[in-house]
């Protein structure tokens, strides 16, 4: 050991390390450091970029990258510390301006420093995975200026104060605001979000919480919505002016939550100005505003829609169940149409034609229209009214519009077959009495019904039109082959196919001889050309035009029903007839006869015969004479029949019964169709499927379906499963 200690001579390393000036690095760095100082002091005009770049390059090349890197950070940090002191010293309003000014200076300096250090950026920093010059410069600014304790909260509060001022109507320097906030964005998304956006959103939330509370206490719903809308546009504008575009969604959701979502129920139900009030008063602007604001929040539109639906249902229920209002069917339907028009307009102008609102409207109508069992009848009556007289002088296009609207109501009906029944009756009356105004309108409606409900629904209705057409041809043929008949009374026969028309039991009645001869001729003529048919006379449905001469020689043409004609013709042969005599001669059923006589004798201005004794009602002991004193301004006088336009109670019952009767085969057909394809099915499923299949026509009653199933079982179409009694089997 001690030996070794002696050998203290050293052998010089053979390799001569080429060392540049040992102070080379320090000297070069000093040049660069001075340049950085000059750049920060805005005294860079004398600097040579080439020289500085070359020096920085050389430092990296000679492995002094680390020194260069740490040196630049230290220099920049000290400058920024100085700057933050200057910013801190700025008073009041100049604070933001100062920070903005210094930020711009820093950015420019940073750019120049990066230019100088470009080579280091590409090589040394790249290979050592350090932070590049530019992001490092931003980080230093963030840490030494923005996060500097004496600036941090002051800066935030200044910004929030300015926003608050702007919200309360003051004008602020938006350009400066934009620049400062842009600084946060440049420093990185997280800096913007943490140091500005989040506190901004919190402050906004607090502000709107207070403000919305104030508004809701003092404003009505319409005004409140106006204010909320204004605030919302203001915030969106604010974002466009000086915030990051990504903040728009966040700040609007704050406003939405505080101003709308939190007060939604209260707004909608606000007394005297809430949604119902707006609907009642057609406040399209307010409604539109409500729609646009509420759609922004969860469940907003659902709330609006629910309130509208319940209002509609309540209103509709009152409309259809008020006995006063259902007195006049035409008015009843017109009122429904008006309501629909009203809400259609609201939905199209204020609710942007929102499908869900349309659906709500439809379901509400469907709900309350079917609350009144007479709706199908009324709708048919409405159409009847329109097609009898209402459409005169209305352009074709408008006719279509009215018919389309009626179809809309029709669609809501659950019992479409009931409508069909009535429609058939009413159509028959129109056709037979020649009261149809427009053949085109009639056919157009049939086409609509056909597209809505299918061929089956309208085949009989179309048959009625065909019958009318054929009858015309037949009559032309009849008179063509009997030219001798041009003298004397004219008989016009409409041959109606059984089944297509709503037939009432044919009431036999004795026609006057003149007429019955003609009828016989027609019968033989018709049956001669159409073998194998049977004709029966529906005297209860005919009309007649007869000429009459009264006491002072006044001539009138009377338009009467067939029954009335039969009665009047009797007076050609005798002056006075008793009720019994008339009944005997004509054999008209008592009820019809009474009605007929009533219309001839008891209607003021139309009383072509007199009744003795005078009274309103016809008695079995009454007797009748021609009213010689009858006068009328018109040559043609129409004697109406006392018929209730609306159905009487027993008639209604009868129609109802017929509808029920017609439904039976349809239900059975549906059951068989379903069972044929499914073979085995349980009770509940059958009911469900049948109901579904028949929906377009009517709402089948489950008990009725059950009865039909029983009937089918009796007739061996189905059987119950022996093991599981709830199952039915189809028997082929």
């Amino acid at each position, binding site marked *: 050991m001690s030996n070794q200690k002696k050998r203290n001579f050293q052998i010089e390393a053979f390799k001569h390390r080429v060392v540049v000036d040992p102070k080379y690095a320090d000297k070069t760095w000093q040049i660069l450091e001075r340049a950085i100082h000059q750049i920060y002091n805005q005294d860079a005009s004398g600097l040579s970029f080439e020289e500085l770049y070359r020096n920085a390059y050389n430092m990296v090349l000679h492995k002094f990258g680390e020194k260069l890197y740490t040196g630049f950070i230290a220099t920049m940090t000290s400058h920024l510390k100085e700057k933050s002191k200057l910013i801190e010293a700025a008073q009041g309003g100049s604070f933001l301006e100062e920070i903005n000014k210094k930020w711009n200076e820093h950015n420019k300096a940073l750019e*120049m420093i990066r230019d100088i250090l470009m080579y280091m950026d590409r090589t040394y920093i790249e290979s050592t995975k350090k932070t590049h010059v530019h992001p490092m410069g931003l980080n230093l600014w963030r840490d030494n200026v923005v996060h500097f304790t004496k600036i941090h909260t002051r800066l935030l509060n200044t910004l929030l104060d300015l926003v608050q001022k702007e919200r309360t109507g003051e004008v602020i320097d938006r350009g400066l605001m934009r620049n400062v906030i842009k600084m946060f964005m440049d420093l990185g998304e997280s800096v913007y979000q943490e140091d500005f956006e989040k506190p901004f959103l919190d402050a906004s939330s607090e502000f709107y919480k207070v403000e919305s509370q104030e508004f809701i206490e003092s404003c009505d719903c319409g005004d409140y919505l106006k204010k909320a809308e204004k605030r919302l546009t203001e915030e969106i504008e604010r974002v466009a002016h000086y915030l990051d575009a990504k903040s728009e969604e966040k700040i609007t959701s704050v406003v939405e939550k505080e101003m709308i979502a939190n007060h939604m129920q209260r707004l909608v139900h606000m007394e005297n100005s809430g949604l119902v009030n707006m609907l009642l008063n057609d406040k399209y602007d307010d409604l539109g505003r409500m729609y646009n604001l509420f759609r922004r929040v969860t469940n907003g539109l659902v709330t609006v829609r629910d309130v509208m639906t319940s209002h509609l249902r309540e209103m509709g229920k009152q409309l259809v169940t008020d006995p006063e209002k259902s007195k006049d069917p035409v008015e009843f339907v017109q009122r429904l149409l008006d309501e629909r028009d009203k809400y259609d307009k609201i939905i199209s102008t204020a609710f942007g034609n929102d499908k869900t609102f349309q659906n709500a409207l439809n379901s509400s109508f469907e709900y309350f229209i079917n609350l009144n069992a007479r709706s199908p009848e009324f709708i048919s009556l409405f159409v009847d009214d329109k097609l009898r007289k209402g459409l005169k002088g209305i352009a074709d296009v408008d006719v279509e519009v009215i018919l389309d609207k009626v179809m809309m109501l029709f669609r809501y009906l659950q019992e479409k077959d009931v409508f069909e029944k009535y429609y058939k009756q009413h159509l028959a009356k129109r056709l037979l009495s020649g009261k149809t105004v427009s053949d085109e309108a009639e056919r157009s409606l049939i086409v609509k019904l056909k597209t809505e409900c299918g061929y089956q629904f309208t085949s009989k209705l179309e048959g009625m039109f065909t019958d009318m057409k054929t009858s015309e041809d037949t009559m032309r043929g009849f008179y063509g082959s009997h030219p001798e008949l041009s003298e004397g009374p004219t008989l016009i026969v409409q041959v109606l196919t059984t089944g297509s028309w709503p037939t009432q039991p044919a009431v036999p009645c004795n026609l006057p001889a003149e007429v019955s001869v003609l009828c016989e001729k027609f019968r033989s003529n018709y049956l001669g050309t159409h073998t194998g048919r049977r004709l029966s006379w529906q005297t209860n449905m005919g009309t007649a035009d007869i000429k009459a001469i009264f006491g002072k020689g006044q001539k009138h043409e009377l338009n009467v029903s067939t029954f009335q004609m039969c009665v009047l013709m009797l007076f050609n042969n005798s002056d006075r007839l008793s009720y019994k005599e008339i009944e005997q001669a004509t054999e008209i059923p008592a009820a019809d006869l009474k009605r007929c006589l009533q219309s001839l004798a008891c209607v003021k201005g139309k009383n072509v015969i007199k009744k003795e004794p005078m009274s309103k009602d016809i008695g079995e002991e009454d007797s009748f004479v021609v009213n010689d004193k009858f006068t009328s301004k018109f040559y043609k006088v129409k004697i109406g029949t006392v018929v209730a336009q609306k159905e009487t109670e027993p008639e209604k019952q009868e129609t109802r019964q017929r509808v029920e009767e017609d439904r039976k085969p349809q239900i059975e057909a549906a059951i068989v169709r379903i069972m044929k394809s499914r073979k085995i099915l349980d009770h509940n499923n059958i009911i469900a499927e049948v109901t579904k299949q028949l929906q377009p026509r009517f709402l089948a009653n489950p008990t009725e379906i059950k009865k039909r199933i029983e009937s089918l079982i009796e007739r061996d179409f189905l059987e119950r499963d022996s093991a599981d009694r709830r199952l039915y089997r189809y028997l082929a």
Partner: protein
Amino acid sequence: MGLSNDRIRFNVGGRIFETTATTLANAGRGSFFGALFDENWNLSQPDDLFIDRNPDCFAVLLDLLRTGDLNIPPNIPERLLHKEAMFYGLIDHLRTAKWGPFDGNRLHLSRSVTGIAPGDGTAIRAGPDGGCCVAHGSVVHVFDWMLEEHPTINLDYQRVNDVGWIDSGNIVLSACERLGRGDGGMGLFSSSSGELRYKFQVSHDNQIKSYSAGALSFSPDSKIFTSCKGRSNEYGIGVWDQITGKQLDFFYESPGWSLGDADKLQWLSGKNCLLVATLFPRKDNCYISLLDFRDKNMVWSWSDIGFLATAEEKRVRDAIAMEESNSICVVNEFEDLGFIDLRMDGGGSSVRWSSRSRLMKSKMPDEPCYPKLALHEGQLFSSMNDSISVFCGSDWVLTSRLKRSYGGSICDFSIGGDRLFALHSEENVFDVWETLPPPII
């Protein structure tokens, strides 16, 4: 600004150059010239701008900015030029101009780099920016696109099985383990410094196990796949995340089907599954399969078990999936190409060998190498002995052959960064093939 003001005079290392600001603007803002002419810098003097650099190189780089073409006079060393380009911040311009977009039919031999490895090369892999790495025994030599060699990489000095580039800065290396030592496996390295950045671990039943890593593959959604051999049953394919480095998944080898020894892995983006091929001579038979990791299912498989008696000479030596034509291309030791249909399970159990006449009529070299396959933008490459054949079109017609006179058989080749690298077994030399820049007209 008048036209005359556009003129710039430089004095570069004593020689005067005249050019325009417009030409120099081609250098971009992130270059020396971009900064020099930025308004931040007060470029006041009207005289010549002095730059203390080499004038010859400046002339080359100025022409590069003027024409976009790179012409290096023979008297200028490339290294010097690269260094000058680094100074001016024009290195990317230089790289882009140096060679054209890859086309297998227009390649020319750009350089041959001789290695100093004591044994045969294992693998060569092209990097995304034109660099490459070569695995020899237990070390990996890394070259950047300038073909400058960087510090070598090794993982515990174990035999390297495969290497691959994650990006131009990161290389993954898979290596054998010495039984029970817990070394080997798979590691992530810096391509510039050769430092180990991360060592991937495999765990079974929450216990970290040592393993040997084999073939590698990467998917575009940042996954790394490798075949793993553990101690007992831990054979199969491991999956890691490139970013977190965490093990994501493990596909255990099913009995009778070799995954842990796989020679080749290939991720198929379109089918969302991994091709695994285990080939002769590592195993007596060839196994090719497609794995779907989502439901741990082998969705397609093929093996030559039972087929060899009749076709002894047609042993599959490499395989590559071609998603566009729904097939797998295979090659045997005579460079016959064969195709297996991916749409039929087991490929209909047969390989459709292409019937073209035997291409290799030449004398076999002393030390033959197994053929390798590569696919690049619709061109198929197949190496055999000392040459690489290029096939094109739907019928894979032979269109070009890359060959040079020395270096012996090609043991591996790789395409990437618009370059083709071929590693020879003798001399352990590797060749760099590049596409020429597009013609002038």
